């Protein structure tokens, strides 16, 4: 029987899935490669290979196509040797292979000026800013959100003002943050905190509110007290959804990174990007941007996989690499958290 590829809402054939995942990265890469390597596609500049008799030209110089043609025509009219060149893209669009080379070089070449951070140092600094911003936000936001979800009076007392502040863009607090916290890392962490916290409380409160009330009732009829209800029922019941929320919120925190790092003394990956742009090494700018993407993507994949290992009852029948690895490390471990085999009925 012919299986149709486009079936609305039906799950994808499993052996198509990895191919399409690769394809989703390959597609933009191909587009980029096409613009970089096919000479008649865009290429608004000419890269001089031989200046000929035109003294104002130098080898490897970039020149607008129209200017190059008119200069050459003038040279021909005057009986001089015209310059030669090949079509080129502007300097801010390096070709994929140039960025690939830069990827290697960016981690191995020392910074241009002494005292400037290496790429990996810049990235590490940025990761720390994100971590602390998200950590402090979660430290307050997670319990507050859960309490808001469970107790309507607390929600009434806090949510309206949080809704109000939530609409103020986090970078708007930049000047204040610097005035209060100085110019180094503290105001940056504060911006990440402001950008994450208010959304976090509301998202977590909402998730908590959506707890299956059946389970609460079942727990009450089993003799659960109000105090036990929170720790024994509510939190375990919403834990998988909370975990997913936190994953999404962490992604959210990353989007505030660049703005946060502009505040006060520019630092981290933002400083690196700006510095490289000033040196007109755009290859490195791409490297830095792609590195942010890679860090975010890898973190998210790892957290996703870890979630499947931690909450097997929620992510039913999905395999977790971390979970399998853990089971492999501890072969005598009594399966509790990871999918177990149900004995066949007699």
């Amino acid at each position, binding site marked *: 029987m012919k299986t149709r590829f486009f079936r609305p809402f039906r799950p994808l054939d499993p052996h198509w899935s990895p191919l399409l995942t690769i394809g989703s990265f390959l597609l933009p890469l191909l587009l980029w490669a096409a613009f970089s390597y096919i000479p008649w596609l865009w290429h608004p500049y000419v890269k001089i290979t031989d200046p000929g008799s035109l003294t104002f030209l130098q080898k490897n110089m970039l020149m607008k196509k129209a200017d190059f043609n008119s200069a050459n025509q003038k040279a021909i009219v005057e009986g001089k040797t015209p310059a030669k060149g090949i079509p080129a893209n502007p300097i801010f669009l390096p070709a994929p292979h140039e960025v690939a080379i830069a990827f290697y070089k960016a981690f191995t070449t020392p910074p241009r000026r002494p005292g400037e951070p290496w790429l990996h140092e810049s990235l590490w600094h940025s990761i720390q800013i994100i971590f602390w911003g998200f950590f402090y936000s979660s430290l307050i936001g997670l319990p507050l959100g859960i309490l808001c979800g469970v107790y309507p009076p607390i929600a009434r007392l806090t949510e309206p003002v949080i809704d109000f502040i939530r609409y103020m863009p986090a970078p708007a607090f930049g000047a204040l943050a610097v005035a209060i916290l100085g110019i180094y890392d503290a105001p940056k962490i504060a911006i990440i905190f402001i950008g994450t916290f208010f959304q976090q409380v509301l998202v977590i409160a909402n998730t908590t509110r959506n707890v299956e009330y059946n389970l609460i009732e079942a727990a009450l*009829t089993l003799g659960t007290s109000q105090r036990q209800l929170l720790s024994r029922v509510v939190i375990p019941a919403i834990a998988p959804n909370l975990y997913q929320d936190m994953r999404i919120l962490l992604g959210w925190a990353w989007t505030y990174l660049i703005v946060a790092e502009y505040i006060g003394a520019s630092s981290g990956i933002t400083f690196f990007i700006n510095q490289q742009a000033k040196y007109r090494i755009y290859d490195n700018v791409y490297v830095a941007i792609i590195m942010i993407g890679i860090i975010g993507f890898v973190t998210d994949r790892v957290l996703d996989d870890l979630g499947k290992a931690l909450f097997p009852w929620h992510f039913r029948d999905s395999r977790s690499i971390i979970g399998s690895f853990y089971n492999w490390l501890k072969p005598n471990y009594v399966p509790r958290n990871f999918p177990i085999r149900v*004995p066949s009925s007699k």
Partner: protein
Amino acid sequence: MSSSPLPSYLEQSPEVAARFARIQQRPITLTVQNLSKTFTAPNTPPRLTLDNISFHVHHREFLCVLGPSGCGKSTLIRIIAGLEQASSGSVLLYNKPVQSPGPERGMVFQNYSLFPWLTVKENVMFGRTIAGIPDFLAEAEARQWLSLVGLADYENAYPHQLSGGMKQRVAIARALANKPRILLMDEPFAALDAQTRAQMQDYLLELWRKVDLTILFITHDFDEAIYLSDRILVLSANPGRIAEIIQNPVPRPRNRQQFTSPPFLATYNRLQELIHPVSLLQNPSNLSNIPRLTHTTDQVE
């Protein structure tokens, strides 16, 4: 109310009558007195769901509450469980009024309500560990309850790995682990398929016979009510009132051959009369507004 006169159309054999006499000798487990419940919602007039309900359940009795949908039978059991507050009247368990949920009234829900993050064994242990019983004791108890409901092999499975009937057995074991004075069952088998439901009914009867259980069982299924119960409390709808409390004349032990026995059919007919006073088919005007959409020669009957 305790010894309502026996309706003439439901004749009890001497053995059944003797059984009921024995039941009435036993202590009263649950008393419901003049219970009423009015629901108020904005923009709608207050709705009287339960109107002056009074009855009681003796120790080791199996009482079924039967009624049409919307008669408030779920509200009734939820008030007894303490999950909802009555507007007036009271619920007494061994003469002590109940207001909030408690482990002495075990509840089994239609949708199982098992904790998905706990294994089968941990679900059954839940009530005991909440009560502060040490884990190793709760675990040993849970294993016993699980073997009683025939799920000893599944103690490490998660609820989502079980079938509906198995889930409901875990839910029963979980409620029983608290050793409740009364087991409240809110249409527990309604979500199961017919075969599984029949099995679960037999299973519940067996459990009730062997374990010290007093059961209040809500259902809308006539056969189920007659097959399981000692008495059937029939509720009428809008507002929910007690239409009748029938002393079930079908002798025990029950078996499925009794479905066609005279006492069973007599009870069935009486329930029909009480719950469906006018059948749709008895009054053809109810059906005549469907026009014929097929050719007149199309004879399906």
